[in-house]
């Protein structure tokens, strides 16, 4: 027994040593390591895999840890780049000793998915869905929901609201939108990566996008918010929402692009640097066809990198904003508008070789 465990330890140790040796063996390969946001992970992993296949000498690894963890890794310089749904705030930018270039590379929509037996399509007016998420409306047959859905048989049951248990960029974008359009929501819940949801038996929390999807799927009378990509992948029913212009729209590439079209990048540079500020939020997009809840997601790249890494990074960014955008649609993300692609290409030049 004793010698067996010893043997196992030895074997494990040997494997570890061999593992280190073998990675050291491929030292001529350029490795870019990143971590961060989990929402763009499906598309990032496809991009990075395809990109690495095309370039034998470059390998890109990305770990979906969450935006906050990505920013922390970036500041602690354990990764070459990071991904974040909430960009970086001014304080975090100051903490990053090696400077940062923030590039929006893809965008997504947050959608409301629900579980109501026999209800194929559901319309939620602009004054109703914030009230559902602040607990003001608690029954499915509430007159305000019924009014927007004539002919739909709504059950006399409680609404179970499913929200994220982990702190997340998706929640940040979603609560940002709700706070923008509804003052009660802003005061009682507010914007945050993990805000104070009402304390009620009707609010349950689940981890990650898949957790919410599974919980909504299994809970009759529930509603939750997830990324459009996940809803598309799992074929969950999605509610139509009323946008700023008063139209009911469905999520999709067109309504997503329409939302991004109203995004305006702030004038000026990131604090303490020459890099233009690309942190644009569209918490309440205008436009007749715009989906109301959309957001960019950013890559965080140092301003100075070793020569080979900088070159590889430039190739990667170029790949993402050209080839990469072509698959965005099919994966449930919004392709970047042409003018944004141009801006990103320009700003990416601020990543320089040491």
């Amino acid at each position, binding site marked *: 027994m004793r010698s067996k465990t010893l043997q196992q330890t030895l074997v494990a140790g040997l494997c570890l040593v061999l593992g280190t040796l073998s990675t050291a063996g491929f030292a001529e390969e350029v490795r870019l390591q990143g971590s961060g946001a989990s929402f763009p992970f499906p598309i990032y992993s496809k991009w990075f895999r395809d990109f690495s296949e095309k370039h034998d000498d470059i390998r890109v690894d990305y770990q979906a840890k969450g935006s906050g963890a990505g920013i922390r890794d970036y500041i602690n310089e354990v990764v070459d780049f990071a991904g974040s749904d909430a960009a970086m705030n001014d304080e975090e930018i100051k903490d990053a000793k090696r400077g940062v270039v923030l590039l929006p590379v893809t965008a997504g929509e947050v959608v409301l998915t629900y579980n109501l037996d026999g209800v194929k399509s559901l319309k939620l007016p602009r004054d109703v869905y914030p009230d559902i998420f602040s607990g003001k409306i608690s029954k499915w047959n509430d007159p305000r929901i019924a009014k927007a859905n004539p002919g739909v048989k709504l059950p006399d049951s409680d609404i179970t609201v499913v929200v994220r*248990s982990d702190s997340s960029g998706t929640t940040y974008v979603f609560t940002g939108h709700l706070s923008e359009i509804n003052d009660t929501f802003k005061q009682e819940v507010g914007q945050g990566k993990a805000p104070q949801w009402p304390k009620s038996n009707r609010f349950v929390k689940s981890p990650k996008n898949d957790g919410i999807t599974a919980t909504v799927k299994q809970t009759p009378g529930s509603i939750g918010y997830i990324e459009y990509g996940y809803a598309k992948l799992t074929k969950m029913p999605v509610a139509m929402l009323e946008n700023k212009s008063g139209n009911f729209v469905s999520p999709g590439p067109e309504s997503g692009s329409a939302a991004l079209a109203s995004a305006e990048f702030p004038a000026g540079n990131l604090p303490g640097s020459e890099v233009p500020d690309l942190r644009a939020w569209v918490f309440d997009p205008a436009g007749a066809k715009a989906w109301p809840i959309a957001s960019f997601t950013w890559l965080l790249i140092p301003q100075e990198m070793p020569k080979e890494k900088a070159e590889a990074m430039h190739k990667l960014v170029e790949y993402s904003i050209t080839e990469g955008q072509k698959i965005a649609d099919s994966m449930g993300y919004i392709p970047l508008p042409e003018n944004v692609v141009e801006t990103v290409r320009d700003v990416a030049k601020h990543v320089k070789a040491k």
Partner: protein
Amino acid sequence: MSANPFKDKASPHSASAPPSAADYWADSLFRKLAMTCAGLIIALLAYILLEIGSQAMPAISEYGIGFVGGTTWDGSRDEFGVLPEIWGTLYSSILALIIGGIMGVTIAIFLTQEFLSQKVATVFRLIVELLAAIPSVVYGLWGIYVLIPMLRPVAGWLHTHFDFIPLFSTDLSGPGLAPAALVLAIMILPTVAAISVDALKRIPYKVKEAAYGMGTTRWEAILKVMLPTASSGILAALVLGFGRALGETMALAMLIGNSNQINLSLFAPANTLASLLASSFPEAGDLEIRALMYAAIVLLLLTFVVNVMGLAIQQYTMRKFEGKK
């Protein structure tokens, strides 16, 4: 007559040979190795406590004891308190202990007291122990897709007919305390059952024969003789099971609903310390990480107190039922 009759018995290959220098050496080496390993375990525990403690220090000095009584966890406003989590941890674990404990001990009696033939009992025991090999996340998924839909009508019925009892004051929307506690009970079942089986098997056969000889029935023998005699082992099983329930993370994060509230109802969503740690860590800010470390210390202390209490009860029953000092 000069030949020593013991000579060939004392050959270096015989078991009765005096220990050689190498034997002494190996013996002392083994002793030292064992001591080092034992010492390392204590050192490791101390190191973990120290490391988490030093990381949690800023939060401890900032929030003090109010942290344990606070009911809000809000990273954006830097307000942290873990009372609902402590409540949820203890509530779910105690429920699991009651259900899993009763089931586990019953199974142990069933397997050891000649209800089954030896072979069938071994197969049964293996199956129960296999439950321990199922990963936590699988239990979580099973809970979401099988257990919750099964529980929902039962919970609804209990809520409509008995809602004056605080335990049933809400109905089950989806995740909640009841499915979490049930899954926990199944998860601790193998631990409780396996150790209780060992405890019951350790009782000398004479004890049972003596009981029968005094004219007890089978049930009297089991309840009045066997169980008290094995009580210290069974208690150890329960303490271990409870410890496992306190620290269980993944299945609970998926099933308990992660809602920071204190509610007596079995069907309301709740939260536990381990689940809070797992779900908040990845995106936590600086101060929140300190607060999470503080929460980890609270969990460690909770487990420690439970274990010490278990040991104390075990000592007491040993003295009372087994006549040991």
